[in-house]
């Protein structure tokens, strides 16, 4: 399809979104990522039954943690789409990049650079 999406999205492939753990999302933030999102399959369509539902709960946990320590929870998000939805994948990437641009750079990265 040769769809374009923002080049600043770094993709990390996992066998199922259920493989994504709390620590993976936190490490991304800790290492200075401005935002991190999980692109899982549509709810109810997980090959492993509940992988995407588990990922959703972990994303919610990290959002809550970030809120508690004064970082915008919107920097972390869960999206659901099927593997056949290439255009939606690009749209989500643009949507997330736009959201993060509005929030500005990660406060961790800013303090580290200072």
């Amino acid at each position, binding site marked *: 399809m040769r769809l374009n999406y923002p080049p600043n999205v770094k993709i990390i492939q996992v066998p199922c979104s259920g493989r994504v753990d*709390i*620590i993976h999302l*936190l*490490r991304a*933030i*800790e290492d200075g990522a401005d935002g991190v999102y999980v692109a899982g399959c549509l709810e109810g369509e997980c090959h492993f039954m509940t992988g995407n539902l588990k990922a959703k709960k972990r994303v919610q946990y990290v959002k809550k*943690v970030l809120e*508690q*320590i*004064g*970082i915008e929870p919107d920097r972390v998000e869960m999206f659901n789409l099927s593997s056949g939805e290439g255009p939606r994948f690009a749209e989500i990437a643009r949507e997330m990049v736009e959201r993060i641009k509005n929030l500005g750079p990660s*406060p*961790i990265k800013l*303090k*580290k650079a*200072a």
Partner: protein
Amino acid sequence: MIVADRKPLNEILEMVKDYKKILLVGCKGCVTVCNVGGAKEVGILGSILRIARAKEGNPLEVDEKTLERQCDPEYVSQIKDLVDDYDAIVSMACGVGPQFLSERYPHKKVYPAVNTTFFGGAVQHGVWAERCAGCGTCIIHYFDGLCPIARCSKSLLNGPCGGSAGGKCEVSKDIECIWDMIVRKKMEQGRLQDLLEIKPPKDWTTARDGGPRKSVREELII
């Protein structure tokens, strides 16, 4: 197992606010099983603390170590060469851990990162419930496997009380009336007459009322 909950983040951050480098120590015993203080949770808390402090522009160095158990001196001693490199130690074990660490390393300040809550088990994935009160004299067999000491809000030996309604305890709708369950089980098993026997007051000296407890097993002492 001993069940615990992680302390609120602001409480932990307050504990370590004056430090630059801490050792976060987990335990592979009960707190690993109840997903509160094992290697995984140590990694998560370590990362959260580093993020929170980096955001404030006051970075905190957190090194992570998970011991086999924190309730045995030989495992606690395994960090003896490390502790002097840190401003403080934060333990993610049950209340036993910080005390064993403090006893072994009296010159170090040790903080608990979890609240130890009860002896219980996992009733479903992610949900733990109290099952034992550690009263020192087990009487579960009188009540067909249902302990009224741990599971009745009043620890009644002759129940239920007037606060039992619809199988729930008056203390909270989330608490099942264990006496309702005991009576139902006795009825199902045709042994309701067991309850005609009045249980005399329990000897609480084997519980906490007798002061701190100790178990001595001569055959094991080296």
